[in-house]
């Protein structure tokens, strides 16, 4: 049996007694693109926040590469290789794209301020490595021509790509993308879709929250459906779109699929 890269068991989160996520189990294999879908308020982003360490689960277990990571700080989770993006496209707006990417390299570097002050050889080596990484990812995302622009001055679509680039700079093993397609026109969505496939070709596993069913259908071999904090279905697009629960959850849902 293939071992799961990420495994979530009985994941539960209560906010002031209200259950946002209840007893959710799933696993993700290395090299998959998995979709996490569900109506608004189903608990998708909460699941992301729990996996990435932004919330502590009320109950349940999160296991990454055979190691329990439940309750770790978010920056520790990031350094282990789980990097998430935010629904509201967060970037360092005051900084240039280049500086954004250099900042993104933080997690896999080690040099501290003393090395920086003395400009030790390990510091210089790490700086070069992060410059190379930043240039590589900007090129990969097609953002290299804008690298000296301040991030807040670039168009919304480029910012969306920058947010993904920033996450990639942190060298994730698994990338959690929170609605990367929302508000994009079909052409832009098409480009992001091919970028995600290219990211996947770089052996990065992807877990993706998405509303756009066309995207989910095209990208994800496996889909997990949440509703009211519970997992109500899992399987290929054909399988879940036949599930009565799922159709019901999407209210008159046949139109959706």
């Amino acid at each position, binding site marked *: 049996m293939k071992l799961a890269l990420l495994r979530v068991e009985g994941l539960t989160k209560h906010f002031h007694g209200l259950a946002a996520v209840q007893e959710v189990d799933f696993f993700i294999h290395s090299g998959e693109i998995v979709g996490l879908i569900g109506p608004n308020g189903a608990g998708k982003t909460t699941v992301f926040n729990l996996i*990435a*360490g*932004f919330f502590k689960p009320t109950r349940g277990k999160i296991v990454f590469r055979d190691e329990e990571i439940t309750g770790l*700080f*978010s*920056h*520790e989770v*990031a*350094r282990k290789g789980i*990097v*998430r*993006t*935010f629904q509201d496209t*967060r*970037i*360092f*707006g*005051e*900084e240039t794209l280049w*500086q954004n990417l*250099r*900042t*993104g*390299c*933080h*997690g*896999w*570097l080690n*040099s*501290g*301020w003393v*090395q*920086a*002050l003395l*400009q030790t050889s390990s*510091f210089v080596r*790490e*700086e070069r490595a*992060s410059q190379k990484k930043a240039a590589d990812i900007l090129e990969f995302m097609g953002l290299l021509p804008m690298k*000296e622009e301040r991030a807040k001055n670039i168009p919304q679509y480029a910012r969306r790509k920058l947010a993904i680039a*920033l*996450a990639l*700079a*942190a060298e994730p093993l698994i990338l959690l993308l929170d609605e990367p397609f929302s508000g994009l026109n079909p052409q832009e969505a098409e480009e992001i879709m091919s970028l995600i496939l290219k990211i996947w070709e770089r052996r990065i596993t992807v877990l993706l929250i998405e509303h756009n069913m066309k995207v989910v259908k095209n990208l994800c071999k496996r889909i997990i459906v949440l509703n009211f904090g519970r997992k109500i279905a899992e399987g290929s697009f054909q399988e879940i779109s036949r599930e009565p629960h799922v159709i019901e959850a999407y209210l008159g849902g046949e139109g959706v699929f």
Partner: protein
Amino acid sequence: MQLSTNKKSKFIERGLWAGITVLLLAVPWMITERYYAYVIALSGIWTILVLSLNILVGYTGQVSLCHGSFFGIGAYTSTLLVLKAGWSYWLALPVAALLAGAIGCLIGIPALRSKGSYFAICTLGFGMIVTIILDNWISLTGGSNGISSIPPPDPIVLPSLGEITFQSQESQYYLILVTIYFLLFFTRRVMDSRTGRAFLAVRRDEALAESIGVDPMRYKLLAFTMGAFFAGVAGSFYSWLVGVITPAVSSLYVSFEALIFLVVGGVGTLVGPILGTFLLTVAPEYLQVIPEYRMVIYGVLLFLTIVFMPHGVMGGIRSLAARWRKKFGGG
């Protein structure tokens, strides 16, 4: 085209720095009147304090109201070690700075758990405690009378080259100037590294910083400790330049003044703190401002700065330069 503009602006920047350095080195020849030389040296010490505060407020975005405490801790520690324990100043200075840094670190651990204005209030409380202790631990600190006749730093003996003494105003001025340059060098190196990028990331967006593996607490604490360390250096310098210290050196006034100088000069810029401090300490002396009006002028200046130049004088200069470049193209 892009590259040549870049090179050109780098060239201009280097030239500016060189010019300013020559000017600063020549200050003792230009200003010979003892009182004004003293005012300039004092303003240099304020500059060190404001630069140290900038590491925390400017780059990490944590507004602290107890920076004066570290100034006071530095001043008292080095003075007591020299006068009561008979230490050499050059041993007392690093110990005083390290103690200020260590206390900063200890206070930072609980205080930095709170955010924004709550953090400011925590530091306010700590700042008051330090002043109260200095005021009331009379057997050690002399209470509100303070400590007087603090000697200047001991001479540094250089084998076969003679010794550097710090009796004269000029030598004291140069010691302060070298320290400012070191602090600028330190800040520049640190900010142009992984650590500096983490500082800025924490200032801009903590959640985003965490998502890429930056531990916000760690970097806030580091900045707070660094700031406290250099504030301790500034305090120690203050003690011998003025010759007298009282618990007032650790007071909220010091913290607030440092913050005002920083905001007026330009938070998070390298040169802003120097401009702000110079503008608000030296200029009033030359303009013969009546001391009672000083706080009123600070208030008005602070108000004008926040309304018209939210990024301080340095930000104002930058946007003027950008406008000028746009207007005349290229250059």
